[in-house]
């Protein structure tokens, strides 16, 4: 049973397009929602993160939108570039459970030149 559901599994966009990755969670006790980016042959690395008291957060071309009532959050990659081609994981954690991260299934994004 996955507590964090991520979609789609894969995504292909043209350079300059805006890939959107969606995640949904069940447990309302989650209080921290990071996104990780993984390039082939590398381990995941923290990209951006949000807390549920904020509806949107931007870092460079990456934006997280958070909808607490719907228990959903999404990652938008603005003006996507071929170098953004990677696998993206959403995750959630709760302080009450020692901040252990629960990951979504991952989305492989390919940005074509």
């Amino acid at each position, binding site marked *: 049973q996955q507590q964090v559901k991520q979609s789609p599994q894969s995504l292909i966009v043209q350079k300059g397009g805006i890939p959107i990755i969606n995640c949904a969670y069940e447990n309302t006790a989650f209080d921290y929602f990071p996104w990780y980016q993984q390039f082939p042959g*590398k381990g995941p690395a923290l990209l951006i993160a949000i807390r549920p008291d904020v509806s949107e957060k931007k870092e460079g071309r990456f934006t997280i939108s958070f909808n607490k009532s719907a228990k959903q959050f999404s990652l938008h990659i603005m003006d996507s570039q071929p170098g953004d081609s990677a696998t993206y994981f959403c995750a959630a954690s709760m302080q009450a459970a020692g901040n252990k991260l629960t990951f*979504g299934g*991952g989305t492989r994004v390919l940005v074509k030149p």
Partner: protein
Amino acid sequence: DVKVTQSSRYLVKRTGEKVFLECVQDMDHENMFWYRQDPGLGLRLIYFSYDVKMKEKGDIPEGYSVSREKKERFSLILESASTNQTSMYLCASRPPGQGWSGELFFGEGSRLTVL
């Protein structure tokens, strides 16, 4: 620079063999984790350790054990490897305490194939 090193990038083992996956971090982090990564399932937590000699089961501990004799080293052990343990294994560490940003620092992974 932050560094988590997994000693073996690729391993091929036979069913029933004992397998050791080693992980070393140089950041003096107290918390260390072992995940396995499978397509469509994301990263699933196997075991974690909040300090030396301490270990806690994650979501999928069956068939695995761990050892943390020194702060910088966290080992994952497959007592008797099975084909369903063929996977990518990722080690991670993080600093403890309040104000933790949520950031896990991952190694590059160990791809294990069990024949």
